[in-house]
């Protein structure tokens, strides 16, 4: 598990194994490909993300959780209401 340096801006990895789109405006086809990756019955797309966990900062990679059940929740934002 890599430790992020606590500077202000640090690349956090992001999706792994997903082709980067070139330029600022991906074509419709590229967008569709990105959207189609997560499906039931298919491998969960791997990623690395910086995280706040157990009082400290850590980079978390999904594939390090093989062998465990994982619940991955997205939500609109910290300090929002629901």
């Amino acid at each position: 598990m890599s430790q992020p340096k606590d500077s202000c801006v640090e690349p956090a990895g992001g999706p792994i194994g997903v082709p980067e789109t070139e330029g600022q405006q991906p074509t419709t086809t590229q967008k569709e490909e990105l959207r189609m990756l997560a499906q039931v019955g298919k491998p969960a797309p791997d990623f690395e993300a910086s995280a706040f966990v157990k009082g400290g900062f850590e980079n978390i990679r999904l594939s390090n959780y093989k062998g465990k059940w994982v619940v991955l929740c997205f939500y609109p934002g910290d300090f929002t209401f629901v």
Partner: protein
Amino acid sequence: MSVDSRFTHKIWQEEELSKMVKGGVPFAMLSDAGGRIGKVYGVYDEAAGVDIRGRFLIDPDGVIQAMEVLTPAVGRNVAELIRQVKAFQHVRKTGEATPSGWQPGRVTLKPGPNLVGKVWEIWKPDMAF
């Protein structure tokens, strides 16, 4: 996971969540800078610039077994998530199938020729609730 930074996660945990849950929520709070991971999971709202309320249940092989996506104004039901985790774990262990509304201890189904046309004998609609 949200598009907020790990620094914002820290302050939210310390200033608010720890007042709802003693000691704070015990889960890793992940940062999805720019929504790049949310895009891959199909939950990034381009117009709002945030990840919407998506939930993915991933098994020990790294395979997605369940997903649920809600628009922001409606919250999730954690009891249903826990029921699904138990059901998927039971199915993985036994090879059985769990009918609608299944709860641990209730009747399961063993799909095969002998069950065709006979589900009504062992499963009743009131068991869906």
